C-alpha cells in the first residue's frame, strides 16, 4: 500500500458509524453475539461494527470483554 492509499484509509469515515456512546451501550449484547457468531453481530449491528472497525479504544474494550468471557482470565 502506497502513501496515498494509507492516507485514504486513515481518512475513511463510515456514515454507518454510530459513535462510542451507542457502541458501548450495546457492547455486552454485541459481545455475546460475537462469541457465538461474529457474522450475526455485524448483521444485527452494522453501525456498531463500523464503529469498532474505526475506533481503537472501543475495539480494545470489546477485545477485553471477549477475553473475560472466554474464561482465560
Amino acid at each position: 500500500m502506497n502513501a496515498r492509499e494509507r492516507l485514504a484509509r486513515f481518512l475513511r469515515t463510515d456514515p454507518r458509524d454510530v459513535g462510542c456512546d451507542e457502541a458501548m451501550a450495546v457492547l455486552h449484547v454485541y459481545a455475546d453475539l460475537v462469541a457465538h457468531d461474529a457474522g450475526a453481530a455485524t448483521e444485527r449491528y452494522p453501525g456498531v461494527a463500523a464503529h469498532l472497525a474505526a475506533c481503537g479504544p472501543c475495539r480494545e474494550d470489546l477485545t477485553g470483554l471477549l477475553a473475560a468471557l472466554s474464561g482465560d482470565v
Partner: protein
Amino acid sequence: MERVAGLDDESAEWLRLLDPSAADHRAGLDRLHERLLRIARAEVRRRTARIVGPEVDDLAHQAAADAMLAILAKRDTFRGESRFTTWAYRFVILEVSSKLGRHFWRNPPAPLDDEQWERLPDRLGVDPHEHAEARHLAEVVRAAVDETLTEHQRSVFVEVVLHGLPLDALCARDGVTRSAVYKTVFDARRKIRAALVANGYLDPSVRQEESS
C-alpha cells in the same frame, strides 16, 4: 426481584444472589467481586506493559470496586439482552479503560514543543523509503488542516494523530467523553478528506466506506 423473562439459569442465579434479601447475598457479592478483580488484573496486563507490580493490583482493585458499585446501582436495568456476566463484565472493562487513561498522566511522555508534521507519514505507517511522497503527504494534510479545521478540531487532531496521545488519556486530562473526542477526530478526518479530494490529491471515485 422479579425474574426477567427468557433469562438463562446462570443469569437468573446471579440476579437472585445480588438481591439483598437473599440469604447468601454476601457470598454472591464476594463471588462477583472476585471475578471482577481477576478480570481487571488480566485486562490491565493485557493492555499495557508500562504498569507493573503493585500498581497493577492497585488499579485492578479500584476498577473492580467501582464496577461493583455500578453493577449494584444498575442491576435493575439489566434486561436480559445478554448473559448477566457479559453485562456485568462490561463495567469492569470500561473502568479499566478509564483508569488507564488517568494513569497515563502519572508518567507522561516528554511534551512535544511543536506539531512535528514530519511524523505524520510514520504515524500512518507509510514506508520510510517513500521519502518524497511522505513529505508531500505531510504538506498537503497540514494545508488541509490549516484551511478546513476549527481551532478545537486542529488541537485534538494534532494531539491524537500527530502526537499519538491515547483517546482515554485526553478524556481524563480534559474531562470530556471518549465519544466527544472520537467525534472531533471523525469530523476532522471527513473534512480533511473532502479538502484533499477537492484539490485532486485523493481519488474522489472511491466511496468512503469502500476505501479499505
